[in-house]
């Protein structure tokens, strides 16, 4: 599934968009399936805004975003849920777990939606990221690092053609980050999916095909 971004400008930033020397805002971009993109976004350049636009959480922009045949401005709620459940997975900067559910329940809510990943794999991946022992802990009791790892595993529990990530490792130490990167690589490979990672600083977590400055 190809991702097309055509001259998108956030309406709140419209007046000062020319001040940014952005390679994304107000640009025409096409990303082929399987690409690995890194978007470097210094503070205040609209990194999270971009992720929200891409995931259909906000629509206050000019221009257009297309995921394959889905135009994000015109997409209806049923199509959007279909896109989210089966084509585009996401790891938010703020994790967005259900605080009242346990770790395992948080994962099951996602896994049960499509039932495409086995329970065995889910447990294996939790184990790989070192959160298996927190299975029955309520998400509200987990540390940020643990929550981030749960959010990463959760994003893997669905079929996807693109994985969108917003500062996915901000709360992880080096070792845990490496394990998370390895898991993401493994599952992305399995899905033959592309990735789009937005972060503050330049990095080489993945073998990016393109790096853009926001």
């Amino acid at each position, binding site marked *: 599934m190809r991702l097309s971004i055509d001259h998108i400008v956030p309406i709140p930033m419209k007046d000062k968009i020319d001040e940014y020397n952005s390679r994304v805002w107000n640009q025409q971009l096409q990303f082929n399936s399987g690409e690995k993109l890194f978007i470097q976004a210094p503070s205040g350049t609209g990194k999270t805004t971009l992720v929200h636009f891409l*995931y259909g*959480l906000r629509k206050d922009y000019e221009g257009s975003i297309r995921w394959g045949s889905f135009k994000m401005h015109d997409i209806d*709620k*049923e199509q959007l*849920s*279909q*896109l*989210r*459940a*089966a084509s585009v997975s996401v790891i938010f900067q703020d994790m*967005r777990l*259900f605080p*009242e*559910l346990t770790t*395992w*329940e948080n994962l*099951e*809510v*996602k896994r*049960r*939606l*499509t039932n495409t990943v086995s*329970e065995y794999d889910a*447990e294996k991946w939790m184990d790989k990221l070192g959160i298996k022992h927190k*299975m029955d802990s309520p998400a509200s009791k987990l540390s940020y690092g643990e929550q981030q790892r749960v959010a990463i595993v959760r994003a893997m529990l*669905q079929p996807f053609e693109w994985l969108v990530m917003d500062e996915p490792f901000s709360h992880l130490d080096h070792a845990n980050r490496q394990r998370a990167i390895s898991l993401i690589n493994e599952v992305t490979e399995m899905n033959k999916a592309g990735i789009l990672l937005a972060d503050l600083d330049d990095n080489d977590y993945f073998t990016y095909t393109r790096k853009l400055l926001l």
Partner: protein
Amino acid sequence: MKPLKQSKLVSKLLLRHRSNNRLWLSLVALFAGTTLLLIAVMIWWNFSLILNGSANNDSLGSTFLTIGKNVTNEMMGKKNATLFSPREIEAVSAAPQVEDVGVLIANKFPVYASLSIAQGFATDMFLEAVPERFMDNKPFGWVWEPGNTQIPIILSSDFLNMYNYGFAPSQNLPQLSQSTIQALAFDLTIGRGIYVEHYTGRVVGFSDRISSVLVPQSFIEYGNKTFAPTTPIAPSRLIVKVKDPSDKRFADFLKKNDYTTNSEQLRWNKMRSVIEAVASGTGLLAMLLMGMGTLVFILFIELTIAKAKQSLSLLLLMGYSPRYLAMFMLRRFVPLIFISLGTAAIIAIALQGIMAKKLTAMNLTLPDLPGIWVWAALVISTAALLTFVSRAIFNSLKGND
């Protein structure tokens, strides 16, 4: 690790904040409202069944009434004042609920009856005739043609009762059974002076419907033509087939024209007004309760959804579709609606059974199961409720992104 059921997880997220008190309150109101609604429809429906005389409800009185003009003091001197003119007969046929009108023609000639086996039993009497379609039973041998010396007679059961329970005990006479009366032959002399004819009269049957001494119409016509050719032949009483004698408009018609009737049928119109008032009152209360129940139920759903707003948004973010979540809510709450409405229906069915059984003892037949109108009321209220509830669910979910 044990796999978790998706619906259980969604339920944990969306229904955790629900207020069970509100839910129970609304379900009880819905149940009570529906029960009352069905009872109101049942009262109305059963009463119409009884009144319209479908089924074997003749004991409430047939739908045949004999009407005459009220004899007032002013009328007393005037001959023929109580006779019905053709125009008046037409007006009666056009009256509300009237299906058929027949005339009761009386003899205009003297009739004198005597019993040859009991010397001294002799009386002047009257005869009447009525079209055959108005008779409750047409006995065998109910024919007369000029030349026949035998005249069949149908006697009102009331007359026999009056004799058996009133006259006979007071005069120390034997009571007579219907078959004994039928075995007797009366000598009937008709006419006056030298113009007389002699006949043998025999009671061939009894009538509950018409309070008179009936002979075949051909005989009365023959007698009136032969012995009173100049007297106008106009009926003094009419027999009317009425669809629903409890209809107030029919009673009003009689009252307006100052007609009298021998039947107690008309008392049903008072009863009907009472029943209608009870049924409408119950129906109104039912609607009110159902309306309140529906309102509380919808508020309960909206509040539950509003309280679970965060979880709902996050579920949508995960890729759960609004339709799935709406269906999940419907699956959770619609069975509760069906249970409360179903219980109301069961109570209605049971009540109808009990009512039918009780009324059988009173010689009234009612169906054992509620009729189509009761089911229609149930189906319509269920459909309306489901529409309101599903709209509330879809609309509340629409508000979330």
